[in-house]
């Protein structure tokens, strides 16, 4: 029965809400209908198992059908962009890791390349190849976290643990390389601080060889499963025009059929040297996004395999002084992070500290699409759609 319960928005936050108790003295004024036109406001989050952190979504429901949403963000706001104005360029580099903490290395790559562009230096080829390998591993790790949590949101318990098992291997590589697993701070402006360790290629190769088989395990569990298809197909459809209008990028855009990947369109690091495909979907629904990300993991694996074939010898640090003092000016540099286009806009006033750093976080912009995607769906779909957007609240709130 539609609209089984009604409380107006103000009521939901006031002390009321017992649907049908004798305690309400304002029932007469409010004329509380439960049936009919009015909506139930459900506060989803900030403490909720599947809002991926501290996202709060106010859902306006009719029965279980979503009539509208309102995202409340900022619970994890730390003022990263403001902090940048009081740190030197090097000092700020670790902070960017804390934005998208699921894909810290990608953040670091974007920032370092942006500053390098500002300084007009280039990292040496060896550094760029190692950066590429680590970033692609990070992309796989990020997609694994996405897949596990997304499947968990839809109710499949097991893929999460399989995904974490593989991610663990990647994190071990990171740990061996730079000592940290999550917020790695692996790159430095101008190149790398650390040489790759002995057996780095072998580790990556072993992981990649295993990984094809492991992907097949997830595919076996999910892709052909009729419940999974039922839960994801035609859910949260976002077509190409909408994606472009909302600025959605990354797998969301590609699932809608737009073949846009900065790794191909504006190659950075050493992506121009490798052959890989850009997987695209057709419908732009949750299932397509799932397929696109699964395929992206396969492509990342191929990139890694190609890259470890020929890591050039040479220096790992470019010609960057101890004190970074870029000329006055501004720069925008963007990379294809696992979640979409990650851009850094840096304004320099020729001091050691940036005048302003502005981040274009993919999660934040993709989150805009939520309202459009969930309207008319059920509560359960909201969870699936939040999962498929692959947001990280550290990046949304910064």
């Amino acid at each position: 029965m539609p609209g089984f319960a009604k409380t107006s928005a103000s009521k939901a936050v006031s002390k009321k809400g017992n649907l049908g108790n004798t305690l309400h003295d304002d029932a007469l004024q409010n004329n509380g209908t439960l049936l009919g036109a009015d909506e139930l406001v459900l506060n989803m989050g900030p403490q909720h198992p599947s809002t991926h952190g501290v996202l709060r979504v106010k859902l306006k429901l009719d029965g279980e059908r979503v009539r509208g949403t309102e995202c409340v963000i900022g619970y994890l706001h730390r003022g990263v962009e403001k902090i940048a104005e009081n740190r030197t360029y090097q000092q700020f580099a670790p902070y960017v890791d804390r934005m998208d903490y699921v894909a810290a290395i990608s953040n670091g790559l974007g920032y370092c390349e942006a500053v390098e562009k500002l300084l007009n230096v280039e990292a040496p080829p060896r550094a760029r190849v190692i950066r590429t390998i680590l970033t692609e591993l990070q992309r796989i790790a990020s997609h694994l976290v996405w897949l596990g949590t997304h499947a968990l949101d839809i109710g499949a318990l097991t893929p999460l643990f399989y995904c974490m098992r593989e991610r663990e291997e990647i994190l071990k590589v990171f740990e061996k390389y730079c000592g940290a697993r999550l917020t790695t701070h692996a790159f430095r402006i101008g190149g790398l601080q650390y040489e790759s360790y002995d057996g780095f290629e072998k580790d990556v190769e072993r992981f990649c060889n295993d990984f094809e088989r492991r992907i097949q395990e997830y595919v076996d569990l999910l892709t052909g499963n009729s419940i999974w298809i039922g839960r994801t197909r035609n859910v949260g459809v976002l077509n190409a025009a909408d994606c472009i209008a909302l600025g959605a990028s990354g797998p969301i855009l590609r699932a809608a059929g737009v073949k846009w990947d900065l790794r191909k369109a504006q190659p950075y690091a050493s992506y121009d040297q490798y052959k890989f495909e850009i997987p695209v979907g057709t419908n732009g629904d949750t299932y397509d996004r799932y397929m696109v990300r699964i395929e992206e993991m396969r492509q990342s694996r191929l990139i890694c395999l190609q890259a470890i074939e020929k890591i050039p010898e040479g220096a790992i640090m470019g010609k960057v002084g101890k004190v970074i003092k870029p000329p006055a000016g501004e720069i925008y540099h963007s990379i294809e992070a696992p979640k979409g286009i990650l851009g850094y806009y840096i304004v320099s006033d020729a001091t050691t500290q940036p005048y302003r750093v502005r981040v274009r976080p993919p999660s934040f912009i993709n989150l805009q699409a939520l309202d459009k995607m969930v309207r008319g769906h059920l509560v359960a779909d909201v969870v699936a759609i939040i999962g498929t957007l692959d947001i990280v609240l550290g990046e949304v709130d910064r």
Partner: protein
Amino acid sequence: MNPTVLTILHFLQTWWVELTCGVVIVAVVPLVAGYVVLLERKLMADMQARLGPMRVGPHGLLQPIADAVKLLIKEDIIPAESDKFIFWLAPVISMVAALTSMGAVAFGPAFQVARDINIGILFVLGVSSLGFLGIILGGWASNSHYSILGALRSTAQLVSYETAGGLAIISALLLSGTLKISAIVQAQYDQHAWFIFLAPVAGFIYLVASIAETNRAPFDLPEAESELVAGYMTEYSGFRWALYFLGEYANMIVVGSIATTLFLGGWLRPFPNVHWLNWLDFLPAVIIALVGVYCIYRAGKQPVKVQTGFMWAVALGCFAVAFVFAALWLLHLFHRFGVLIPLNLDFILPGLNGAFWFLLKVSGYIYVFMWLRFTLPRYRFDQLMHLGWYILIPLAIINVFAVGISMLLEANGVNRWIGMVLTTVLVLAAAVFLVRWHDQRTESASTASLTPDSYAG
């Protein structure tokens, strides 16, 4: 002697098996439920490439007790705006219903509380279905949106799937021709087949419906943790929450028992009519003893001395139980060869053996539940309702007719198995048709902006 005492003694003499069973149900089922939880976690861990609880006791064997203690001493939180009376009452209803319905379950030919009611299976069904009053009332009383959404989902789901499950049960009841539990099992003995083989579709429908009735994945929408936090239990904590949990797991055992009684031959051992397989009656003792042997084998590999001791203790326990089985068997033999022992324990051996097989089958059934839970994603609410109303219920109705037809055919001299296969094929064809039809329907509906309301389903 005092007449009152005599009355009481007489009462005890008549009802001691029933009383003991009652006490066992009330005292042991919670513990068993705790261990079912542990088993579930262990199985889940095994399927997910991890270890599961390992800290409390060797291999986490004491985990349920630790959990119970933790839940007991936890602060009892009652939400401020909740309806206190019903908030208090709801979990109790949930658990009492599950435990009461267990009273009529026959765990073996000798172990049943309500031994001779001639509506046995209906009693189990009806009383266990009262448990969801606890869910709906608890969801309402907690004064939380998540809770009430969970309660409403639960109501709609239970009403739908109880219909399908009831129709599936009718198929089996047609075959048995009685509602009495012991007579149902006897009918399976007399007809030389478990009813799952005579009405496979009904068995399958009951499996699905019972998963939905116990709110287990993939039908765990009322408590879907990723959507409704914990559904109707959101506001519950501590021991009240534990009561819900207990009720849920006890309910699993109840539906397992119903399925075992109706479809899997109850307490009958495999091939009960084949006499050269009579050695299977030894199997319970042997299996339990083998578990003991395995424990001893594992005991040597334990890293800590305490754990080794514990394993030995478990092994000794197994041996003791196996010995009881064996001793009773020996007594039975003595009896047969004329050595008279004054105790009349005749009913106990078949009783224990029956209980062993019965519990084994119930465990198998519950294992299927768990396996599905670890494997499948969750249905969405409208999909759940559609599955119930558009596929399972029509299929169950068709199946009732099919079973009736096959019985008529048999009465008219057609070989039973031929009739069974024919009707089952027909039902399966109907199932394929239903699924196809429903897929087309949903495909055309998904293009429309709004699908019909799901609660009305």
